[in-house]
């Protein structure tokens, strides 16, 4: 087994005054209101000067009891709630949930619906990565990329808005397929967008990829090995940047992904810079998938035959998709009634955030910020 030693709680919270300014140790409380914790994450840092001896994350400030709500809503009613978890990648959340329930109901979405799902999910992945890039760069001190990424993300949100009327929490899909047919000019808009974005990605890379300060700030920062990633359950771009070529879209394909030709970008060192490069590559791969999907968009129905009142047979199912942040899984237990007996969400951010302690030990305060940024967490998903 790789490094699987249990790491004890880094801090003795019960006696904070014991260590204050004692033998150069300092407890620094970062958050829950802090510009760089991406929401209401509270990180307690134990410092020796500027060196981090350990961190403890205090989470739950955004806990809304999504899983409990799921047990008290019908399958269809719970669908919009999942959008509120990872609110920057709401479409992915919806896709995961719909596919899980479809699996439970043993129905399959028609091909056209699957293609639309892929297009929107990949657009959402782009939007999520753009937001990550902007905030990550801002954390490291580069202000300007934030505005560039928000400008381009706006185009994606416009497509969402035209498609389903919502920009952020879209509720784009329904169990069994899609509710909305594509609007007139959907394909034109998407094609225009995928022609418009590559030069913009070049622009971001021009600002950052070979920028000396950026490279110095991110290379060898927050390193994590492939073995540690697997032991900690870290998934998504973080895992791939450590050199593991694993993507659920390829490993356990879902929706229409088997039809498309794309590559899984991997890194070598597992440091912040590699994660940055992997995500930049992923953005380009997503564009590739969208191009294939929109060019091969089949005709046909967009909704499978779904009973008005959904009563899946008793049983349980776990299904996961590759969300922008990693493996997003849903474990649903049905007792044959109209409401799920138990809904469990396996949030990628929650599990990835656990690696923060390992990644920042022995590094500097400024690196904590960089690593929180590179983990790409959304607190709505961590806390649910």
């Amino acid at each position, binding site marked *: 087994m790789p490094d699987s030693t249990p790491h004890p709680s880094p801090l003795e919270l019960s006696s904070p005054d014991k260590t204050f300014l004692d033998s150069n140790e300092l407890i620094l409380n970062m958050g829950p209101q802090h510009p760089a914790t991406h929401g209401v994450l509270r990180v307690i840092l134990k410092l020796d000067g500027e060196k981090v001896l350990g961190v403890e994350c205090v989470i739950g400030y955004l806990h809304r009891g999504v899983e409990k709500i799921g047990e008290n809503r019908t399958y269809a009613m719970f669908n919009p709630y999942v959008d509120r978890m990872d609110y920057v990648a709401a479409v992915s959340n919806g896709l995961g949930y719909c596919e899980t329930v479809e699996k439970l109901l043993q129905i399959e979405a028609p091909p056209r619906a699957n293609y639309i799902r892929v297009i929107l999910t990949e657009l959402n992945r782009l939007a999520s990565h753009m937001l990550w890039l902007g905030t990550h760069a801002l954390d490291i001190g580069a202000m300007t990329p934030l505005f560039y990424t928000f400008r381009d993300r706006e185009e994606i949100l416009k497509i969402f808005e035209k498609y389903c009327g919502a920009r952020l929490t879209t509720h784009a899909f329904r169990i069994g397929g899609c509710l909305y047919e594509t609007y007139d000019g959907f394909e034109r808009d998407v094609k225009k967008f995928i022609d418009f974005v590559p030069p913009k990605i070049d622009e971001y890379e021009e600002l950052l990829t070979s920028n000396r300060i950026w490279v110095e700030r991110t290379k060898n920062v927050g390193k994590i090995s492939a073995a540690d990633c697997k*032991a900690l*359950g870290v998934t998504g771009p973080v895992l791939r940047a450590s050199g593991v070529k694993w993507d659920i879209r390829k490993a356990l394909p879902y929706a229409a992904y088997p039809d498309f030709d794309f590559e899984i970008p991997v890194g070598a060192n597992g440091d912040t810079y590699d994660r940055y490069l992997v995500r930049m590559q992923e953005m380009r791969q997503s564009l590739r998938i969208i191009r294939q999907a929109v060019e091969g968009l089949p005709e046909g129905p967009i909704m499978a035959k779904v009973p008005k009142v959904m009563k899946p047979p*008793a049983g349980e199912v*776990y299904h996961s998709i590759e969300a922008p942040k990693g493996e997003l*899984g849903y474990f649903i237990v049905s*007792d044959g009634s109209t409401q799920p*007996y138990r809904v469990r969400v396996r949030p990628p951010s929650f599990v990835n955030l*656990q690696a923060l302690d390992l990644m920042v030990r022995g590094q500097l305060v400024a690196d904590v910020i960089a690593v929180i940024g590179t983990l790409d967490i959304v607190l709505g998903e961590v806390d649910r």
Partner: protein
Amino acid sequence: MSEETKSPPPGSAGEPKPAGRPWVSPLVTKLKTRYGSGVFEASTCLGQNCLVLDSSITHEILNILSEEEEFDYCVDITAVHYPKREKPFDLVWILYSFPRNQRLRVKTMLAEQESFPSSIPIWSGTNWLEREVYDMFGIRFDGHPDLRRILLPEDWKGYPLRKDYGIIEQDQEWVQANLGIESGQ
């Protein structure tokens, strides 16, 4: 297969019965020969493999799965509450093996107040997952280095994902004391 029919899992009342087929694989055969009646059930349901084990041997089997069978990634740990059952908790591990590209669900049943050995020595990433199960269901994990509530406040009373905890119920004392809301809602 014979053991399965002989000794059904105890206290299955109220539990939804999955309509699965028996799962036949070298892994199951190996486990069954080694542990016999401890392996209650090995089924494939909707294309997903599931093992239901006796709680006394589950930790050992998880160890074997991790070390001998290459299940090197613990995707998730969660629990399900069946209040009417004799052993009201299902503790569920969802495992994945990178070399085999295979998922596996391991389940065991726990009684009220029964604790379970922590799997942090096997997969270090289960730390927070176990804390969440403790937070939401009150299942204790022995040997966990830092078993505190994770999502809810530390001095919260009650375990919200148990079935006897209503949807609008909350720790009114805590809300009154900490948020200053008179009604506690």
